[in-house]
């Protein structure tokens, strides 16, 4: 709408300049970029600046490693992998929540089916079960199952939130590595 989000020719060429600098364009794409560059001062300027940027980045000196990162058995014994907060709990909570939600939805569908079939359906249920009203049991199950789903969801949200806040760095200390 109103031309928003529509790419100009310069935008399209700008997207390909990086590949052009690396010599990765060929055929029509290369011809198109070169044709555009020959007549567009701002894109030619951008190309020159991009080349210099790449040159600067490629010229960054590689520092020598300040120490050896070789590992030894003592290090392996002491330095445990950082355990993110709630990693184990989430591993259990995820499938538990998914399964319980699925079962809850099935229950709702069954209940909805009973409502749709109305009294006739209820009578059929009552007849097939010797006069006992299974709808009452189903509602009780729905309520308790719903509470369980909410409990799982709250636990999942709480653990995810704690985890999102970060985890204790278990080995960020000046131990044997220094």
């Amino acid at each position: 709408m109103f031309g928003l989000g529509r790419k100009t020719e310069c935008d399209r060429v700008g997207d390909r300049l990086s590949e052009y600098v690396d010599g990765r364009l060929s055929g029509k794409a290369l011809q198109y970029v070169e044709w555009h560059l020959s007549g567009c001062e701002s894109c030619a300027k951008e190309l020159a600046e991009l080349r210099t940027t790449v040159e600067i980045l490629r010229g960054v000196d590689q520092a020598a490693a300040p120490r050896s990162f070789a590992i030894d058995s003592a290090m392996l014994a002491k330095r445990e992998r950082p355990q993110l907060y709630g990693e184990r709990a989430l591993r259990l909570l995820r499938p538990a929540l998914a399964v319980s939600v699925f079962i809850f939805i099935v229950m709702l569908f069954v209940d909805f089916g009973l409502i749709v079939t109305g009294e006739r359906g209820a009578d059929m249920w009552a007849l097939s079960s010797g006069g006992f009203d299974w709808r009452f049991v189903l509602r009780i199950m729905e309520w308790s199952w719903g509470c369980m789903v909410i409990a799982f969801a709250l636990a999942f949200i709480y653990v995810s939130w704690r985890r999102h806040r970060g985890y204790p760095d278990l080995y960020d200390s000046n131990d044997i590595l220094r």
Partner: protein
Amino acid sequence: MDEREAIARSKEGEVDGFNWLVARYERQVYNLALSMLGNTHDAEDAAQDAFLSAYRSIRSFKGAAFKPWICRIAANSCIDKMRYRSRHPAFSIEDNPVEPKSYAPADQPEEVALRTELRSFIDSKLGLLPSDLRLTVVLVDVQGMSYDEAAQVMGCALGTVKSRLSRGRRQMRRLLCADKELLPDKYRHYI
């Protein structure tokens, strides 16, 4: 010992075999971490974590090339570190630029100082890029990897590398242009 033998020995649990690989790639891994994290203290930690994680999971390594694999572990380690740092912002007295001693000893002190300054300037600008663009620029331009290798490290398609590199370079160009007076003379006139 060659790389294949070192990998085979590492898979059997030999620490010496693995340390041969560490000696070969530690500089690259450390520099990747340094460019990603911008300070020596975190870079050392991330590099050490990467090698320890690699040793622990070397049995699952099935590829032919060790370099992209270890760089991928290092990149994940850096992202973990960045995530942790963003949640626990703290001033560190070790947030220093790379010290001149890290460079070749034959260089003149003045030259070394200039290069150190340039490196910390570039690292500070790289730190302003979003992490995915930063990783791509670091792998391809700073580390000199091919597009295919970068795609392996990042576990994404070649097209994704191209587009991230394009966006990353364009953002770097803008950042460098904004502070071009801090660049060495030879670059200042072209940017």
